């Protein structure tokens, strides 16, 4: 399982990577915004994307839309981990095809629960 973690703050990437490692996901890569992340996704064999929303360059929501619009990436599971918590934003992310949405600050338990739920649903299909 190869996971790409996208956040403009290196500390947050590090926290997410550590939590993922604790959940048994050791194969992770990092990007600091959508613009860097998109070519990595297109050229790499990632199985899962964890992204922030508010980033310079390309924002997380646009990265999500680009992923869904790309025939090779459209089925990639995407988990959004963000401080953005407006009702309309969550609706927008859901409509854009997000697989999970976590608001910061979050706990290790929440991350575990959401990741498990995403994979359960994918396996159930």
């Amino acid at each position, binding site marked *: 399982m190869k996971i790409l973690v996208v956040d403009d703050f290196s500390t947050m990437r590090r*926290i997410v990577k550590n939590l993922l490692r604790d959940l048994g996901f050791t194969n992770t890569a990092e990007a600091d915004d959508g613009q860097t992340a998109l070519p990595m996704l297109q050229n790499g064999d990632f199985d899962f994307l964890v992204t922030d929303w508010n980033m310079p360059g390309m924002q997380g929501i646009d990265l999500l839309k680009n992923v869904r619009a790309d025939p090779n990436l459209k089925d990639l599971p995407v988990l959004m981990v963000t401080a953005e*918590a*407006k*009702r*309309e934003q*969550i609706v927008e992310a*859901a409509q854009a095809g997000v697989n999970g949405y976590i608001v910061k600050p*979050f706990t290790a338990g929440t991350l575990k629960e959401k990741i498990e739920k995403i994979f359960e649903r994918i396996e159930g299909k």
Partner: protein
Amino acid sequence: MQIQDKMMADVTLEQARKLISCLESGNLEQAREAIDGLSQIREASLFSEVGKLTRQLHEALANFQLDNKITGLAAQEIPDAKERLNYVIEMTESAANKTMDSVEECLPIAQSIKETADNLSIDWSKLYSRELKPGEFRELAARVEAFLNSVSSDSGDLTSKLNDVLLAQDYQDLTGQVIRRVITLVQDVEDNLVTLIKMFGCSEEFKKAKKNTKKIEGVEGPVIDKTREDVLTNQDDVDDLLSSLGF
């Protein structure tokens, strides 16, 4: 002021009556004097108006001393505040990294203690169920001894790294002081802006703008205002919304 106006009107009336009576009696010399008197009254009131205007101008200029304060804010204190806030970002980032460095060093130590203890415990239970051969017992005893020594030195390591984590939290005090100063500055800027708005006579618009709740579009980072109805405050609310959307 009203009394003064009344007095002036009385004097003017008196002069006017004098002028009429002089003209009627054909006393042109005195009539000319009466006309001069009237124009003096006019000049006097003109002077007093000019005087009032001068005083107002003076007060307006004095109020504009404020302008100097705004110049100071824009030239010095706001750039200084930006530097201070950048310092807060640097301090918090460095503290977070120091903490995570230490934690990442602690994790494998704790993991290795657990693994060794688990393995020893399996063999230790063999001892009780008499499954150990004499040679194996000697080997187990040596492993237990090595483990006890390593636990002692590992917990020393853990203690020192946990202390590093503790010390890395010293940023809170320093950044707290810096942020408090910036808050004072923001308050100062606000007060000056409000005074400026009042000076330019836009108080009504200011009051109206204060009542308006402006809708913020797009990304805005963490929302602190708990009363906002367009924002969800916790993960449970987010989950509820998503499940209502069929998630």
